[in-house]
């Protein structure tokens, strides 16, 4: 009887082992086939190209889906014009339903200006655009439009936790032929449309929150890309308009 029990135990362990192996191999297989290297390669090419640009300007049109407290589905639109001059100059102008704001960074000071309210706030900062963006977000709670286009290490950031990647197909965004990519990671699905040819710029982004059943998205359509715009340093310097009043940032 004791011998029998031992045999049973051994057999059970063996079966459990096989079952475990089966589960693991199914998962590994699923993951290996779900991330299409063709998609990640296009994304990598795009991020490397963006990082290589010393200066660029772009117009973006953002649509934020939302549900009002009344339960009605509504879209908010914000358009932005962004000019970047690496390493340390940025100007971003946003206007739309929710916001009418200009953001300046001249390498020494960041300024946020609301033209319609005629108020602005300034904060001394030094460093690269990336360092300034980190500071703005962490210390002041500021969101700067298309900040994600500026980061030089965008590729590993975008690919973090990605469980699925695919090339959906080809489409034309604002007259530009693009590869349509789809990526998924826990809680977020994102789609990117990357131009074909020698300038692999993004022309559209859709980020969907898959953490809630409503599947809300933010859509950004980019146009008017200029990869070597003529910029003057003075463009990035805020000059207080007559009658504008200085206020402060509320510390986080």
């Amino acid at each position, binding site marked *: 009887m004791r011998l029998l029990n031992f045999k049973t135990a051994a057999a059970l362990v063996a079966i459990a082992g096989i079952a475990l192996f089966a589960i693991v191999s199914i998962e590994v297989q699923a993951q290996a086939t779900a991330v299409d290297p063709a998609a990640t390669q296009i994304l990598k090419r795009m991020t490397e190209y963006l990082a290589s640009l010393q200066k660029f300007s772009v117009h973006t049109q953002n649509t934020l889906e939302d549900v009002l407290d009344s339960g009605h589905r509504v879209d908010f639109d914000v358009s932005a014009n962004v000019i970047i001059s690496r390493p340390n100059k940025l100007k971003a102008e946003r206007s739309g339903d929710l916001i009418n704001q200009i953001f300046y960074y001249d390498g020494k000071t960041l300024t946020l200006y609301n033209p319609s309210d005629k108020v602005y706030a300034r904060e001394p900062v030094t460093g690269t655009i990336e360092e300034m963006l980190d500071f703005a977000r962490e210390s002041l709670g500021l969101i700067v439009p298309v900040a994600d286009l500026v980061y030089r290490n965008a590729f590993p950031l975008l690919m973090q936790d990605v469980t699925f990647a695919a090339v959906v197909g080809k489409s034309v965004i604002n007259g530009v032929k693009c590869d349509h990519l789809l990526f998924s990671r826990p809680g977020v699905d994102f789609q990117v449309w990357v131009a074909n040819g020698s300038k692999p710029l993004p022309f559209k982004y859709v*980020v969907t929150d898959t953490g809630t059943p409503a599947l809300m998205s933010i859509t950004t359509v980019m146009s008017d890309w200029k990869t070597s715009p003529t910029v003057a340093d003075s463009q990035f310097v805020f000059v207080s308009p007559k009658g504008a009043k200085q206020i402060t940032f509320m510390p986080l």
Partner: protein
Amino acid sequence: MKTILKISVVAITLALMLIADLPFLPVQLVPEADAILGVRRRTARRTAVVVGSTASAQTAAAQQQTAAAPQQAAAPQQAAAVAPPPAAAGKPLPLGTVVSALPAGCTSTPVGGVEYYYGGGNFYRAVYQGNNLVYVTAKPQ
């Protein structure tokens, strides 16, 4: 014989559990397993909160964008939720109270180079809370 029976029962049970746990089947032994593990909640929080911490530099663009949405979209809701205090001289609000709009009929008064707004028994000062322009009750000095 008994042993074989025992083993096969266990094996079949294991196999059944495996099948039931396969993702393509609608049946799941532990529905919302990821929610239980906190994955979903964590993700929701990560996307809701404005990306902070040093890890934020490593946070993906996608998340930054999703982070921007609730924050930006919150503006109109906030406006609706935080009703402007009554214009008539009501009870003064505690210092540091944040409102998204000034009460009607506020008058502006510069005190020591700072613009204050007076209305409903309170002085307000304009400040940026993140990207949002808000008004905070303050004591002019």
